[in-house]
Each structure stands twice: as structure tokens, then as C-alpha cells.
């Protein structure tokens, strides 16, 4: 058959599956423990959890290992695992003001209210490949390191500072609608802000960065460069309602990155004496993603449906959607291609007939 290379039925598939697993699991190096991934490849695990929309470091580590480090594949494993499980409870909303800070940078002020905490970041390290580094365990003085890694208590966020200075447009409202659940309802434009935010929180990191940069140097240009208020990384509690007592209980913690993007309002119909703020929040330590998200959040609000920005955010940033559809091109398409060839011949036939009728023999 014309598709012999990728055909051959069940046996070929089982053999391909077997080859994949054997070559992965029988490598001569030491097998990877999940704790090595969560402990030593923290940012990879964080990014995978963020794009999967599932806080589960151990499962994410297993997925990354099974996927041989392919993040999209690992995200796929986690999301389809989630599809097998019933939803047992919904967490009680938690305000990000409760964030216990591991890192906080406020580019907008030299001395904001509260501390600037550089924390664990490669931002200030020279990016030089350390080819000589011995893999030895550095000696750690617990007294010395403990304070810098321990979460800091809550501090005032810059948005509230601006609000106190009467420099911020007030978009708060009391209606408190249920957030749009993108895992249960498809979000399409026009959609509530919560749908856009949760879509971006689960989006593929590179897709969000690209959508942002496309607006800076590409043909779209719906958004401005913003000033960042807060860039935070920290820990929040997960609380659920106890099924018997009905009271709130904490069942664990998760980490987020959170960013405030301050926008300089300059539109004719905007309050040009004030600023507005976009918010970006995603699982784990992934500042790039949170910054892009915050910038796109405020850009989409200001765009107010005038352009297709909202559709781009909602429909084109999911890593599994885009990668899956791209890769489906590898599947057989010979029925559709046959039909396309048939129309080419039909067009040719018609134009030949027209030539014949115009030129009498």
C-alpha cells in the first residue's frame, strides 16, 4: 500500500511502543528517580505543572521521565490522567495577598512598601556554562541559608499602594461571579476575564511569550510595553470545605508566580490621569509566563473586542491543542488527497473543453 511505512496494524504499533520504552528504560546510566526531577529540575517540573493545570510535583516528575523530557508530552500525560478522575471537591478561593513570599521584585519603585527579595533566581548570575564544575554537594550552613529560603509573610502589594495614591482606575466590582471553568466549558470570544486568565494560566509558555512579542515587533501591535509592579513567587494554601464539619481546612500548599503589569492609560476614552493593571498568575516558578500573561490581560481589557486579540489568547495558546493538531498532519491523508487530485483533473478537463470550443477544428 502507499502508506506502508506507517501502516502495518497492531503488531507494528506494539513494536514501536516496545522500542520506545526499551530504549528509554534500558539506558546504561542510572535510572532517574522522581525526587531527582522535583529536586534538581525544579523549573522543568513547575513549567509542566503550569501547562497541565495540575499541581502535583511527583506526578509531573513521573510524566516528564516517561516523556523523556518532552514537556508537551508530559503535559499530555498529566491532562489525560486528570480526565480519568472524578471531581471530588472544589477548593475555596484564596486571595493572592496570602502569598508567603519566596521572591519579590518591584521594578516600579526603588523602595516599595515591603522588601525586595531577589530569592532563588538566575537573573543576576553570569550565564557562563560551567564545564568544570564538580558534582559535589556544597557544604551548607543551615543557619546561614534558612532565612533566605524561608517564606516571608505577606507584604502590601504595589497595586494597593497605587490605589492609596489614587493613581489606579478602580475596576473592582462586588458581583463576584463564579469563575469560568475552562476544563468544563469551552471558552470562546466574547468570554469573561476569568476565562482568559485561566486559559493563559494553562497556556504553553512559549506561545504566550510569542503572542506578547508578536505585539511588540510583529504585525499585530495591540499592546504597549508595561511597567511591572510586582513580580512574585511564593506559596499559597489550598483549603477545602470539610465534608462533615463544613469548616474550611487546609489540605496543602502550592506555589505560584504572580505579576502585576502597570499600564499607562493614554486612550481618548480612558482616564489618562490614572494607571490600570493587568494580572498574571500561574503554577510554580515561571516568571516569563506570568509577565506575558499580565501584559496580555491588560492589553485584552483595553482592546475591548476591537481586534482579534481575545480570540488569539483563547484559541491559540494551548500547547496540547496546537501541538496535537500540528502532529496530526503525520496521519494518513490519502483519502482527502485523492479527492484533491480529482478536483485538479476536473479543473483541467474544464479548461481543455473551453479551449476546444474556442478553437474550431
Amino acid at each position: 500500500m502507499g502508506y506502508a511505512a506507517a501502516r502495518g496494524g497492531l503488531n507494528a504499533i506494539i513494536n514501536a511502543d516496545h522500542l520506545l520504552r526499551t530504549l528509554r528504560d534500558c539506558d546504561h546510566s542510572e535510572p532517574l528517580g522522581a525526587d531527582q526531577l522535583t529536586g534538581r529540575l525544579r523549573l522543568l517540573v513547575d513549567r509542566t505543572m503550569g501547562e497541565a493545570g495540575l499541581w502535583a510535583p511527583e506526578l509531573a516528575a513521573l510524566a516528564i521521565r516517561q516523556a523523556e523530557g518532552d514537556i508537551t508530552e508530559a503535559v499530555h500525560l498529566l491532562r489525560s490522567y486528570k480526565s480519568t478522575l472524578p471531581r471530588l471537591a472544589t477548593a475555596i478561593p484564596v486571595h493572592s495577598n496570602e502569598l508567603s513570599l519566596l521572591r519579590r521584585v518591584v521594578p516600579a519603585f526603588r523602595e516599595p512598601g515591603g522588601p525586595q527579595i531577589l530569592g532563588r533566581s538566575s537573573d543576576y548570575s553570569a550565564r557562563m556554562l560551567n564545564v568544570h564544575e564538580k558534582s559535589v554537594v556544597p557544604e551548607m550552613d543551615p543557619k546561614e541559608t534558612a532565612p533566605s529560603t524561608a517564606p516571608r509573610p505577606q507584604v502590601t502589594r504595589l497595586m494597593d499602594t497605587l490605589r492609596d495614591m489614587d493613581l489606579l482606575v478602580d475596576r473592582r466590582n462586588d458581583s463576584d461571579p463564579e469563575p469560568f471553568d475552562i476544563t468544563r466549558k469551552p471558552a470562546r470570544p466574547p468570554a469573561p476575564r476569568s476565562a482568559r486568565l485561566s486559559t493563559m494560566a494553562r497556556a504553553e509558555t512559549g506561545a504566550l511569550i510569542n503572542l506578547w512579542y508578536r505585539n511588540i515587533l510583529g504585525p499585530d501591535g495591540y499592546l504597549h510595553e508595561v511597567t511591572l509592579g510586582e513580580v512574585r513567587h511564593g506559596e499559597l494554601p489550598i483549603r477545602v470545605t470539610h465534608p462533615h464539619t463544613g469548616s474550611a481546612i487546609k489540605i496543602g500548599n502550592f506555589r505560584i508566580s504572580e505579576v502585576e503589569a502597570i499600564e499607562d492609560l493614554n486612550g481618548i476614552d480612558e482616564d489618562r490621569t490614572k494607571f490600570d493593571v493587568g494580572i498574571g498568575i500561574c503554577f510554580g516558578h515561571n516568571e516569563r509566563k506570568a509577565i506575558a500573561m499580565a501584559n496580555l490581560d491588560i492589553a485584552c481589557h483595553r482592546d475591548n473586542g476591537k481586534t482579534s486579540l481575545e480570540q488569539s489568547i483563547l484559541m491559540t495558546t494551548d500547547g496540547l491543542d496546537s501541538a496535537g493538531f500540528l502532529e496530526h498532519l503525520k496521519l494518513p491523508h490519502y483519502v482527502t488527497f485523492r479527492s484533491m487530485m480529482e478536483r485538479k483533473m476536473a479543473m483541467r478537463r474544464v479548461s481543455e473543453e473551453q479551449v476546444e470550443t474556442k478553437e474550431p477544428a
Partner: protein
Amino acid sequence: MTVVSHREPTGVIAALSGSALHDEPAFTVLDEESKREIRRALLHAVCAPGYQVPFGSREMPVARGWGSGGLQITLAIIGSSDTVKVIDQGDDEGVNAVNLRRLVTASTGCEETTEVSEATVVQTRHRIPEDELTSQHTLVLQVPVPEPLRGIERDMRELSRMHAESDYSRMWVSLYEDKVRNGVITQTTGYPCLVNERYVIATTPIPRWDIPRLHNAEFLSLFGAGREKRVYAIPPHTVVEPLTFEDIPFEIEQNENTHCRLCGSNSSFLVQSPSQDDNWSCSDTAWCRARRTK
């Protein structure tokens, strides 16, 4: 280093390899509440033929674009007493068909077949089997792009208005322009059809050859687009008209001077293999095989 033996797979792998019995579901792909939600969307779809019903599409063990929508429908409607046939391009042995079939059988415990006459659910990508489907069958079609108007309009807000108001004027104009520019209507597969005189649908892409079989059919057709999170349906005995003009008849693919090199048929949808001398064969392999063994 521990060397793990891979010769005796267990769990999910065993089930997918066929070494576990099919009697009992070996694992779950989709939880029961989700299946119920999909069935509700399908009921809605049957009540409004051709209308694209939004649903909370879940991530499946197959990628978006690889039949995740069709798979969710099949899993939602199938039971252990059902028999499933899965084809891709008309072929039960296509890689995608094999993969989806083993997921369905291993996770639901249903039977599998390549024979239309034995099947109750037929899941397909890009074809409708040549054999007649009856009221015993439910046809589940995998849909990559459910929006028939996307070629003429990109904005989703405008698209939803056009469907809501049955405003298909620009579709007609595009067909007219196609005819004027090219001499024929060049739309190949997934030909746009008006369902129940109300909604225009994308016909998956199945070839034009299969389109007439959707009209006043005995069977229920369910369309699943997992990536775009839409399902739609053509209930039995529903009017399905390919969009065309009164004086321009709808054309199916022609089999001029061709026949299947295996069974000799020229009354089935034939596909070409340029590497072969006698290079046409039936795309529906089970149908072709049955003709040869008769």
C-alpha cells in the same frame, strides 16, 4: 542498574497490547461523570441537527487532532454489549484506527470487529464504510475542523452570528466565485451541507463520494471535534443537502477508467498508489476483502 523486563507488560500496557482479557475494563480513560456530560451534549445535538454544541472536551490519551473528539463520543455511548469498528481512511488497520480501537475495547470491555454487519458503533476518520449502515449503527465521525465557514470568516463572534441567523450568503458567494474562477466547484472533501434546512455543517472531511449517504440515512451520525470542543449530529431520516446551484449538479469523485486492482470494483471510493502499476484500490479494505472472498 536494574534491568527491567519488558517482555511481560502489565496494567495499561498489557491491556493495550491485548494480553489482558477484554471481558473487564482494564483501566479508565474517561470518568463516568464526564461521559454523562458528553451524552447530554449529544442529546442536545440530536435535537438541533447540525448545530455545533459546545462541550467540556477532556484530554484523551490520544492527541488533539488524532480523534480525541470521536473517541470521547464513542466512550460516552458505548457499553460492554456493543461491538465497535474503527476505520481510518476506510482501513481498519490504519495506525490511528488500531490505536483508537484498542483504547475503546480495553477501557470498556466491548467487542471489536472489522465487519459492518457485526458492528453497533462505527468510529471513522475521513470515510463512511461502503457497506450499508442501518438503524443498528451509530456512526461516530472524528472532526478536525467543525466550522464550515472558517474559510470565509475568521472572527468567531461573527461566525456565531452567521449560524444563528442562518446567514450563509457569503458561503454562496464563495461557491459562485469558485465556479466562475475554476470552471468547477473545487471544494474537495468536507463538502459543506445544509442539515434539516437550517444549519450548514462541515462534513468532517469525508470525500464527496460519501455525502449522499448522509441524506435521509437510516443511521445516527455523531460528529466529535475534541480540540475545538464541539459535537454535532445528523439524526436518522434528516434532510442533508450539499450546497450547490440549481444548474450546477453536486459532483462526487469520478472513477473514470479505473477499478480496484484487488477486487475489480469501480463502484467504490478508490485511492491511488502511484508506486504500483495497476495503481487503484478500494479505500474500504474490509469491503474489498469481502468482495474477494465471496
